[in-house]
Structures are given as structure tokens and as C-alpha cells.
């Protein structure tokens, strides 16, 4: 099938954690539910039910803010063992259809169903059957997108939610792209979108017409990727068992930084982002690495390892201490970066002697 047209699904469980809670506790049905930590403990919304979303409650929002938006909000403490059980059931279904399943999180995956165990020629039929299977196995709903590649499949699955199914067949790719605003893309946040708008780029297809060098100046290394996507091209394969080894961000500053207080603020923000990323992935990191590039382009990295954590305060503290081990401030800095490594998955089971049955 190499070189042929691929059939990719992106399947995303609807308000997953919150839906599991509403399923398991009927008194929560129809009520605004947020799964997450308590507002007085600086808790964060891990998932919000659709009822809560109508009040503007979103995941990753602070619980304190969520309660302000929706005073009748029911806060439920997360119970990952039940989410994991539901997720396992869903992924077991996926893997019955194809071995090419790429999990993005507990509740989201790409599937390459170009060839599938059901011999269904149409991806839409595979999606329909999977959605029915998910409903039967878990009493939960999912939204699916079917398209010739991952990028389009993901956008399609978000098109109609909950319980949606959106298909972008090859002949509909171009009209679909024509309507697509540039900030619908993953990796294009509000800041990048703002920069693109300033260049007159509102829709993704607008990048086709802009000068490449200009685009590079605006969004850096994202430029080539955006151009590819604007033609609906995304050759990334669906990779099963992709293991994440690290995550991080770095920023090159328009003007070199000399103020250490400013550098500390920048690092703190990047470390907090890394913590949020870890929390989303349900991972913990042992090692924090900072990267400092001085104005003369010499680059140093400093790392610190300790107990695995996803706590923002802990990661920020460690990142800031590492800055004292550089010459930042004494020398101007053009780039700062923070990344987390040696990731730990608390759900991973190692083989060995029998374990105490904490959950079964």
C-alpha cells in the first residue's frame, strides 16, 4: 500500500474524565462537573463536562476560576484507576481493528485503518463501528475524524463534538482547507496566530501566497510545516507505542537579555509550562535541564535530577537554581530553554514478583 492513499482516524473521547464520573454516579448526570483538585489548594480543572463548558469552564483552568464562572460546579476528585480501566477497554477495541494505534493520551489516539481487520474499505464505516463498540463497552461517547492524514483527521474529530463523526474525503480536502482559520492548528497558539494575522494571514491557505522568507521571519521554523499543511500534506506515519522521552521549550529573544530578573521570569514560565505538559500526560520527570545561549552563540546546558515530580513550584525552583550555575547576567543571553527528562509513568508495571493488589 506504500504511496497509496491512507485512511487515518483520530478518535477523541468526549469530556473523558468527567463523562466517566457522570456514568458512574448518576446523580452527576446533567450537572456541571469538573474533575480536578480543590480550589483552595490551587487545584486545576483536569476535565469539564459539557454542562460545565457552557459556563466557560475549560480544562487546565484553575479550579478557583472555574467555580467563579460556574458557582453550581460539582468538583470531583480524579480517580485515575477508573479512567485507566475505561481507556484500556477503548484501546483494546482500537487494537482489534489495527495494530497501528498511536495513543496521544488516555482518551485520544490516531489509528491507521488503511488496512483493517474488518476489511472495511471506508474509514467512515470503521469509525462508526468503533464508536458503537466504545459505547457498548464503556457506555461513553467519542468523536471521530476520518481523513487522509493525521493533521486533517485531528481537526475533523474536533469539528463536531460530542459524539461526532466528521469525514474529510480526499476530494473535500481543498474546500475544507479553504475554510480553516490558521489558529485551528496544533502548535499555533494565540501568540503565533496574532503574528500571522499581523501579516494578513487569517486562513491556513493564506500562507501559500506569502513569501517564504517573510513567513520564516514571522514564525521561525514553523514556516515550512505550515506551508506543507496549507496544501493538506502531512506524511507523518501513525506510530504505535511512541514513547516520549522529554519535553521542553526554548525561546530566542528579539533582543539579548541582560536583566537576570527577566531571565528568571522567562525560565519560571517555561518550567511551569513543562509542569502543565507533564500533568496532561500523567507523567513525572526526574530531571530538569536549562539551556542558555549567550550573545556570542556559545551554548551551555545545566541539569538537576531529584525525585520525579510534576509540581510546577518544584520544577521552577530547580530551573532557577540552575541559572545560578551559568554566567547569565554577566553575559547577555539570546536564548533560554527549559526541558524535563527521565520521565516516569506511574502506571507502568514492571514484571517481577507478585504485587499487592492495590487496584483490581
Amino acid at each position, binding site marked *: 500500500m506504500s504511496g497509496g492513499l491512507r485512511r487515518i482516524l483520530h478518535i477523541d473521547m468526549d469530556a473523558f474524565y468527567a463523562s466517566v464520573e457522570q456514568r458512574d454516579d448518576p446523580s452527576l448526570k446533567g450537572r456541571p462537573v469538573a474533575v480536578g483538585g480543590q480550589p483552595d489548594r490551587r487545584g486545576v480543572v483536569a476535565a469539564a463536562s459539557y454542562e460545565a463548558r457552557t459556563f466557560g469552564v475549560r480544562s487546565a483552568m484553575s479550579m478557583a476560576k472555574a467555580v467563579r464562572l460556574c458557582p453550581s460546579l460539582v468538583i470531583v476528585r480524579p480517580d485515575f484507576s477508573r479512567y485507566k480501566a475505561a481507556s484500556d477497554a477503548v484501546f483494546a477495541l482500537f487494537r482489534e481493528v489495527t495494530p497501528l494505534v498511536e495513543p496521544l493520551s488516555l482518551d485520544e489516539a490516531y489509528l491507521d485503518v488503511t488496512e483493517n481487520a474488518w476489511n472495511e474499505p471506508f474509514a467512515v464505516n470503521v469509525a462508526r463501528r468503533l464508536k458503537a463498540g466504545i459505547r457498548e463497552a464503556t457506555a461513553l461517547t467519542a468523536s471521530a475524524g476520518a481523513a487522509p492524514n493525521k493533521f486533517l483527521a485531528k481537526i475533523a474529530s474536533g469539528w463536531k463534538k460530542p459524539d461526532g463523526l466528521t469525514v474529510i474525503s480526499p476530494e473535500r480536502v481543498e474546500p475544507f482547507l479553504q475554510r480553516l482559520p490558521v489558529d485551528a492548528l496544533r502548535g499555533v497558539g494565540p501568540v503565533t496566530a496574532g503574528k500571522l494575522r499581523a501579516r494578513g494571514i487569517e486562513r491556513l491557505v493564506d500562507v501559500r501566497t506569502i513569501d517564504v522568507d517573510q513567513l520564516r521571519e514571522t514564525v521561525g521554523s514553523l514556516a515550512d510545516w505550515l506551508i506543507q499543511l496549507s496544501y493538506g500534506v502531512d506524511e507523518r506515519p501513525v506510530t504505535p507505542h511512541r514513547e516520549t522521552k522529554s519535553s521542553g521549550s526554548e525561546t530566542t529573544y528579539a533582543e539579548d537579555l541582560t536583566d537576570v530578573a527577566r531571565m528568571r521570569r522567562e525560565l519560571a514560565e517555561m518550567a511551569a509550562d513543562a509542569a502543565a505538559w507533564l500533568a496532561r500526560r500523567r507523567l*513525572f520527570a526526574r530531571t530538569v535541564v536549562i539551556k542558555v545561549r549567550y550573545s556570542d552563540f556559545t551554548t551551555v546546558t545545566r541539569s538537576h535530577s531529584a525525585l520525579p515530580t510534576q509540581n510546577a513550584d518544584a520544577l521552577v525552583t530547580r530551573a532557577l*537554581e*540552575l541559572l545560578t550555575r551559568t554566567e547569565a547576567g554577566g553575559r547577555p543571553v539570546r536564548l533560554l530553554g527549559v526541558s524535563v527528562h527521565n520521565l*516516569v509513568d*506511574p502506571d507502568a508495571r514492571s514484571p517481577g*514478583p507478585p504485587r499487592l493488589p492495590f487496584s483490581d
Partner: protein
Amino acid sequence: MELVVRKNDLLRELQLFQGIVERKNTIPILANVLIEAKGEEVKFLATDLEVGLRSRCAASVAKGGSLTLPAKKFYEIIKSLPETDVRITEEKGAVKVAADRFDSRIQTLPREDFPALPESAGAQATTIPRAALKEMVGKTQFAITGEDTRYFLNGALFVLKPDSMSLVATDGHRLALVTAPRTGGETDPDEIKAILPKKTLSELSRLLAEGDGDIRYERGENHLFFDVGNRLLISRMIDGQFPAYERVIPKGNDKHIEFERDRLSNAVKRVALLSNERSRAVKFHIDKGKVAVTSSSPELGEAHETLLVDYSGTPMQICFNAQYVLDFLAAVTTDVVALDLKDEVSQAVMRPVGAEGYDYTYVIMPMRV
């Protein structure tokens, strides 16, 4: 800064910091102790960003100020001095430490690089009886795993209720739980739970080893504070959810056997010498009136030792990692211990018989026979 302090006062405090400072030395300032002189005392602070310790001792301060010194070197120097007064003086980017005819200059690191540690609010401190806390730490800390992908097992769960407190630790294969009653907690909120890092427990047991008086405990946003005498241990909490430990403590174990602790301990130690070196498996053959502890390993040979017990239930066999049994037997102090079983695949429970002032429950997952 310029001060004079008695050698023994200084040494007693510096000793406590040796476990606190970071050994890996990836951030040099974390190997240093911050020294602040003011009024009639000198204060010390060190941290590895996970656990911190504040302490103080009396000093005669000629000139106040603060500086940092490498905790280990400083301690070694003070330890080697005769019982006398020590003079510490800041001098052109270095620190002079002198006593009698000894004189030294030690390199320092900028005080500004020293991390800020959270302060306890001091308002809602809870009082914990020292003796009970000591039992809790000593009888659970060995069950914490050092290296596990399940981060939350790198610590012990502290549960504070109005009328009781518990510490529970597990490495996934065995679990140690100590619960002690407490009074005067009526004003506390319902229940406080926090996961304490392994290092916090070992530093806490060091602080609890000498002295008396109760401990003041406080929980901040990310940190816990233990005020032990004049010393304050500041510990980060471990993130995440501790496993549902109540779930693995069996209730229906109907086979009860009591052992003399020393005899069981010696038998298991001897027999384990010929157990498989990796699994350390020893088998308990339980029969009317006796338990035979056996081991065998294809490369080494086999061993057995019979203990006479009061037992009249159905015969059965069960297999344990010898180390798990020995860890428990080393932690308890009573003459008699009890083993409660259900069958060869379900969790076994060990308890001291006749322990006073605390309940100790030790759960072991058996190995496959």
C-alpha cells in the same frame, strides 16, 4: 560577619546538616550551609530543594551578617578541632575559621545564590507526640522503595486525623502501617494527608533521636514543616495519589500463628543463606504444632529449620521474600509476633503481639510457591 561559637555547639548542629546537603553536587550552592549571625545566636540553613533544615545555636556575635560554607568541609574541620571556641570571620570573599593555633580560609559561594525556602505560617501548627512519631517513622521507613517508576512509592503517606495519626509505606510488595492515637486534635480539620519523601523520614528520625518535647507540624502549600525542638525540618510533599492502602490489608485471614521473634528471625536468617540469591525466597510449611522454614537454590543447595508453634488449623505452604520478613522482625521490639494467613496466594499480615501505644500492621504479598 564575625563571631565566636563553642565547638561542641557548632558541631552538634553541623552534624545534622550532613544528610541534608546535596551529595550529587550538580548545583554547588546546595552543598553549602547558609550561616546567619545576628544578636546572640547564629542560624544555619541547608537544603537540597526537597528537604531543608533550619537550626541555631548560641554565639557571641561581634558583627552580624550572612555567608555560605561547604557543609561537609566545614563540619570536618570543626569536628577535628579540640574542645574550644571557634572564630568565624568573613574576609575578602573567603571565610576564616580559626581556633587555638589553627587557622584556615575557606572558599565561599555567594549568599545570593542560596535558594529561598518557604516560611511556615506558624498559625495552624498541630502538635504531635514525639514518642509515637518516632515509632511510626522507625517502623515504616524501610518499606519505602528507593527506585521505582511509581514516584509516590518514594515516600510514606502521613495521615493525620483528629483522634489518630498514621504513617504508611509500601514498595508494592509489602506494606508497613503504624497508627497511634492522639489527643488534643479536636480543632483540626477532618483529615490531613501528605506524602513525605524517604529522605524526610530519615532526617526526621535523626532529629527525633535525642531530646524530648512534642513536635509541631504544619502543612503549607507545597511543603510540610516539622518543628523539633529548636530545629525546623522543611520538606516538600511528593506529588500524586498514594495507593489505596486500606484495600490491601486483608480482613479475613483465619489462620493465626504466633512466633517468638528471635527464634523466627534467626531461623529465617540462617535458612535464607541457601535461598535463591535473586528472589531470596523462603517457604513456610505450616502444619499442626510446627512451621518448617525451608529454602532451596539449584546452585547452592537447600536448608530447613523447624519451629514449634501453637497451631491446629489446616496445613498449608506459603513463600516469602526472606528480606521482607526480616525487615519487619528487625523493626519490632516485642518478644512475640503474629502471622495471619488466608491461603498461599493472598496477602499475609504480621503484627507485634503486645505492642503498647501504637498499632503496627505489616502486609506481605507472598511469592508464587
